[in-house]
């Protein structure tokens, strides 16, 4: 047999392999995971080498009557200038740059609209929000919904909701844990919220889409005037309004496109009970919400899993958004990752729970002693934000002619390390240049031992954090990045 024929046969066979097999070989998620695990291994080897060096150098130094040079730096070694702490209350947002697309459905009433403008940590800064204090009227299918909560509205949607008798809110995500921290833009400081924060970054009417859906209710029927309350409402709910005025409005419950039977059609002359039924159906069919909250807790059976859930659950009502690795969730709904939040900020402490029983515990967990002397998280966030606003923080890695910063965001977390507890602030940029996206970031760190807030390089930060570094950008800078 000729080699060319053999090659040709193999070539044809490889071309005809199924899509999944071929695409799996180029799965970016796999390479990202792989890079992380290899970096961890490399860090471990470096640490072992460092300790080995220390073990060798210490006796030698003593012998030579000379102080050893430790290979592991301390916070005071950081070369960049210190930032002043700002005075403010504590608070924070646990989310990443993108918020969950699942939520709870209910009938609620607006109590008041807070007077200030807000920004969300972890979310790009070009979006300003307003907050309403709300009270739950009823939430069939979601009994864990708290009696009072805050509702977030992007500024362009912000109309005074107290003008409406009641509001049917569909698939409204919980954005933060209890004690969540947001940035009060009006007063230029971090602010801790006393109620749980729900809401979305985009809203729609009741037709077809799976963004947060709103319907005002008056005298037991839909009050379509909300959908033309301002230009944004008019633009974004035109489809809903058209459907409604045509005599039919469809309450599309979550994932309804998978199973159209889950849709609930409400005619113009429908009454309050029909709307309630749609709310209930939305809650019952919102698989993500149930999976991430009630079901995941109810199905934990081992004592260890229950103990962990009690540890990481910083709320009383059972309605929350645990920091779940969506990849695991998609692959196997019985596998969850829970992250602990303290004072409204994420921490490096997270647990994987497999099959509701087997628990993978992190290397380092926060102790009661740690909680007594935590770094000033809100102060650190304020200080970095203040410096940024003064123009003192710019993208450190990416510089190109014609580059434009499209978005920037701030994110902070507590990190428990071998060297103590730190609070890390991450400043992120999304930049365009030559029609391509680029990502850049920088980091600031402060500790609970009185050290000032200082900028720190990614390498130095990774050295301090060790394996618990999931919030640190792991890829190369200057690479073309997807929009996120």
């Amino acid at each position, binding site marked *: 047999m*000729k080699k060319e024929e*053999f090659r040709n046969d193999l070539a044809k066979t490889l071309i005809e392999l199924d899509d999944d097999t071929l695409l799996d070989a180029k799965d*970016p998620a796999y390479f990202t995971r792989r890079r992380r695990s290899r970096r961890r291994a490399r860090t471990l080897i470096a640490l072992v080498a460092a300790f080995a060096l220390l073990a060798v150098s210490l006796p030698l130094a003593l012998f030579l009557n000379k102080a050893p040079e430790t290979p592991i730096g301390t916070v005071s070694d950081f070369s960049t200038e210190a930032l002043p702490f700002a005075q403010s209350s504590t608070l924070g947002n646990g989310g990443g740059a993108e918020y969950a697309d699942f939520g709870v459905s209910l009938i609620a009433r607006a109590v008041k609209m807070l007077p200030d403008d807000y920004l969300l940590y972890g979310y790009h800064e070009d979006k300003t929000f307003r907050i309403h204090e709300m009270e739950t009227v009823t939430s069939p299918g979601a009994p864990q919904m708290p009696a009072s909560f805050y509702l977030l509205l992007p500024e362009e949607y912000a109309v005074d909701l107290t003008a409406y008798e009641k509001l049917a809110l569909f698939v409204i995500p919980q954005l933060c844990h209890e004690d969540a921290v947001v940035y009060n833009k009006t007063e230029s400081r971090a602010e801790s919220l006393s109620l749980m924060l729900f809401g979305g970054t985009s809203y729609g009417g009741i037709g077809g889409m799976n963004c947060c859906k709103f319907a005002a209710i008056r005298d037991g029927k839909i009050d379509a005037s909300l959908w033309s309350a301002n230009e944004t409402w008019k633009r974004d709910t035109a489809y809903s309004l058209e459907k409604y005025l045509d005599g039919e409005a469809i309450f599309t419950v979550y994932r309804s496109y998978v199973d159209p039977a889950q849709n609930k059609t409400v005619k113009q002359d429908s009454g309050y009970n029909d709307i309630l039924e749609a709310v209930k159906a939305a809650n019952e069919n919102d698989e993500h919400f149930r999976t991430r909250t009630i079901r995941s807790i109810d199905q934990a059976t081992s004592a260890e899993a229950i103990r962990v859930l009690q540890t990481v659950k910083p709320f009383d009502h059972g309605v929350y958004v645990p920091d779940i690795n969506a990849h695991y969730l998609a692959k196997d709904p019985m596998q969850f990752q829970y992250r602990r939040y303290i004072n409204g900020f994420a921490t490096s402490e997270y647990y994987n729970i497999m099959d509701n029983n087997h628990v993978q515990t992190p290397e380092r967990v926060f102790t009661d002693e740690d909680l007594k002397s935590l770094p000033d998280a809100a102060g650190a966030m304020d200080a970095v934000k203040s410096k940024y606003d003064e123009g003192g923080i710019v993208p450190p890695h990416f510089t190109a002619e014609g580059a434009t910063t499209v978005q920037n965001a701030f994110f902070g977390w507590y990190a428990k390390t071998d060297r103590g507890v730190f609070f890390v602030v991450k400043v992120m940029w999304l930049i365009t240049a030559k029609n391509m*996206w680029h990502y850049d970031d920088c980091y600031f760190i402060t500790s609970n031992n009185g050290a000032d807030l200082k900028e720190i390089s990614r390498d130095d930060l990774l050295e301090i954090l060790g394996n618990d570094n999931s919030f640190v950008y792991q890829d190369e800078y200057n690479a*073309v990045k*997807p*929009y996120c």
Partner: protein
Amino acid sequence: MEDEKIVQLYLQRSEEAIACTEQKYGAYIGAVSLNILGNLADMDEAKNDILLAMWNSIPPIVPENLKAFLTTVARRVSLNLLRSKKRLNGFLLDVSFEELDECMPVRASTEDAFDAEELKRTISSFLSTLSDDERRIFLCRYFYGDSIKKLAKDFYFTQSKIKMTLKRVREKLRVTLEKEDLYL
């Protein structure tokens, strides 16, 4: 523009949907496509196909997550484009493919007819016996045509480790082909 609005434009059959998708996700589509196709010229060609596929898919599909859906479409369209390029230009232009000569069973006969289905089954089964790394390295090298240097960078291995892995996989393939009597 928010994703929900873009999907709404698709549902309303507004061509603005394509412009908005390109504006918001054009670079992202390019990055996804480049990862599969490996060169900028093909990437540009794929972009148009991807946007057309989006237009043809929504509706009836109403994506829950536009970006995730776009990723799936972009990857599959890029893969199909890569397949058609390979069919058109001939797979054998890939230098890396010569390495597979090693897999040819030593007792191979020229008289036996090539059984495409049987070979496909054998290769699929063979791939399933490999470890995750081995399978990916094999396909990245012999289907996607990645260089040893690129593989070393992507997999965080040394180049010699990549070469050794490929050599072992080729040997396994040769043994498998012999065992299945495919070329005897």
